C-alpha cells in the first residue's frame, strides 16, 4: 500500500481534503475538456509536477504506483491500434489519433487522481464523503473496511509465513492446498472478528450508529480558496492552450 504510506508522509497531509478534491476535480474537468494531445500531455505533466514538487511525493514511489495502470494502458492502446478483418489482424495507423488521445487523457486523469490520493489519507476522504451525504451504511462499510483491511492483511501475511515455514509453498500442488486452507481460515474469521468488534463496540455504548469526531481543518477556508483559484487557472490554461 504505497499510496497509503505516501499520503501519510505527504506535505499536504494536513490540508483540508475539500481543497485537494477540488483541485483534482478541476484537473479531471480540464482533461475532459481538452481536445488536443499536446494540451493533455502538458496537463498530465503539470499535475504530476505539482504532486512531486509541491506535495513532495518521492519520484520513485510515484513511478511505482504508476506502473500497473501503465501496463493496462499499453495493452489497451495496442489493441486499439490493431484492426481485425477478413485478412486477419493487421496494423491500423488510422486509429493512432484516437489511441493517443485516449492514452493521454487517461494519463492526465490518472495524474489528477494521484494528486488527490497520494496526498490525502483515506480517513480524510471518508470524512469528505460524509460531508457529501453518502448514505450511512456505505460510510460505515468503508470505515470498517479500511480498519479491518490492515488487521486481516496482517493475519494473512502471518498465516502465509507460518505455512511457508512448514514448506507449504514448496511445490505447486501443496501451494494450492495451503492457499485454500488460508483463504478458508480467513473467511471463517470474518464472522468471528465481526462478532468480536460488535461486542467491543457495545462495551463502549454502541447503539447501532458508528459515529466519529469529524476532523477540523483550521485553514480550510484559505486552502479551499487557493485550490479553487488554482483549479480555475488550470481549466482556463487548458482552454486557452486549445485556442492557441
Amino acid at each position, binding site marked *: 500500500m504505497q499510496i497509503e504510506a505516501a499520503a501519510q508522509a505527504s506535505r499536504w497531509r494536513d490540508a483540508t481534503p475539500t481543497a485537494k478534491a477540488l483541485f483534482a476535480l478541476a484537473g479531471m474537468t480540464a482533461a475532459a475538456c481538452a481536445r488536443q494531445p499536446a494540451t493533455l500531455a502538458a496537463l498530465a505533466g503539470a499535475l504530476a509536477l505539482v504532486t512531486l514538487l509541491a506535495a513532495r511525493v518521492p519520484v520513485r514511489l510515484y513511478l511505482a504506483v504508476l506502473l500497473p495502470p501503465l501496463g493496462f494502458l499499453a495493452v489497451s492502446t495496442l489493441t486499439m491500434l490493431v484492426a481485425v478483418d477478413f485478412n486477419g489482424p493487421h496494423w491500423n495507423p488510422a486509429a493512432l489519433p484516437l489511441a493517443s488521445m485516449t492514452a493521454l487523457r487517461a494519463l492526465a486523469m490518472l495524474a489528477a487522481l494521484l494528486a488527490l490520493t497520494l496526498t490525502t489519507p483515506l*480517513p480524510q476522504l471518508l470524512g469528505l464523503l460524509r460531508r457529501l451525504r453518502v448514505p450511512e451504511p456505505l460510510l460505515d462499510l468503508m470505515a470498517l473496511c479500511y480498519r479491518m483491511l490492515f*488487521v486481516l492483511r496482517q493475519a494473512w501475511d502471518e498465516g502465509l509465513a507460518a505455512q511457508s515455514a512448514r514448506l507449504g509453498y514448496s511445490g505447486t500442488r501443496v501451494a494450492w492446498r495451503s492457499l485454500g486452507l488460508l483463504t478458508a481460515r480467513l473467511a471463517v474469521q470474518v464472522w468471528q*472478528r465481526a462478532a468480536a468488534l460488535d461486542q467491543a463496540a457495545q462495551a*463502549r455504548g454502541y447503539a447501532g450508529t458508528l459515529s466519529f469526531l469529524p476532523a477540523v481543518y483550521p485553514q480550510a477556508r484559505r486552502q479551499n480558496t487557493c485550490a479553487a483559484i488554482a483549479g480555475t487557472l488550470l481549466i482556463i490554461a487548458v482552454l486557452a492552450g486549445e485556442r492557441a
Partner: protein
Amino acid sequence: MTALIELRAVDHVYGDGGYGLRGCSLAIHAGRRHALLGANGAGKTTLLLHLNGLLRPAAGTLHWQGAPFDYSRAGLAALRRQVGLVFQNPDRQLLSAHVEEDVSFGPLNLGLDEATVRRRVAAALDAVGMREHAQRPVHHLSFGQKKRVCIAGVLAMEPAVLLLDEPMAGLDAPMQEELEELLGLLAAGGVTVVVSTHDIDFAWRWADDFHLMAGGACIGSGPAAALAAQSELLRAAGQRPPLALALHEQLAARGIVPREPVPRSVDALLRTLNLETA
C-alpha cells in the same frame, strides 16, 4: 459499605453447554485496586464481560450499588457509562483506523456535544501519553501504543470503574512499568480499577484486593495481604505465592530483614537488603 458491583451466585453457560461461571460471587468496592487472579480458562474474561453487561447470567444476579443490573437498552447504556472495559487484544477493540476518531467513539455514544467530546478525547490521549499520535493511523502504531489508544477510548467515557483484561500481556518490561504507573495514577484519581491477570507478582505489587478465580467461581476475595498468605487457596487458583513474599518470609525468619514492612516486590526487598547491609 455497599459494594460498587456485586455478583451473587452467577452462572454463565456457553453455547456448547459448558460453564463459563459457576456460582460466582464477589464484590468490587469503590476506590480500590482489584486484581482478578486465575489460570487461563478460570473465567476471568467471562466475569469481566458480565461486569460490563455484555453477557447476561444464566442464573444469579449482578448489582450496581445495591440495585440489580437493568438490562434494558437505557439501563445498559447507563451501566456502560459507569463501567468501562478494555479488551486484551487491541485489534478487536479499535473500530477506526484513526487514533483520535477511535477515541471519540465512546464519548459520542454518550450523546455529548462536540466541544465536550473534543476536550475529553484530548484529555484521555494526554492521560495515556498518546496526544502527539492523535492524527496517526492505528496500523502504524506498535502493540503497546495500540493498547494505550484502547485505554484512552474507554477513559474518554470517564467511567467510575475501569476493567482491563490481561493488560500486561504482550508488553515488554519497560512498557509494563509505564502501564503500571498509568494504572496507579488512574486509581489515585478516584477510578476503581479491576485488572485480570495471571501474573501474581504484578498483582502483589499493584493491587489492594485479590479475587481468586478457579473453575468459574471466585474462591477467595479480600485484601491482597490476607489472601497472598494462604498458599493452599493460591494453589487452587493456579498461583504460587508472590516471590517477594516467599523470600521475605525466609529472610525475616532468619532475622536478615525486619518482619515489617512486608515488601511488595523483589526490588523493594533488594532495596531493604541494601539498606541493611549499608
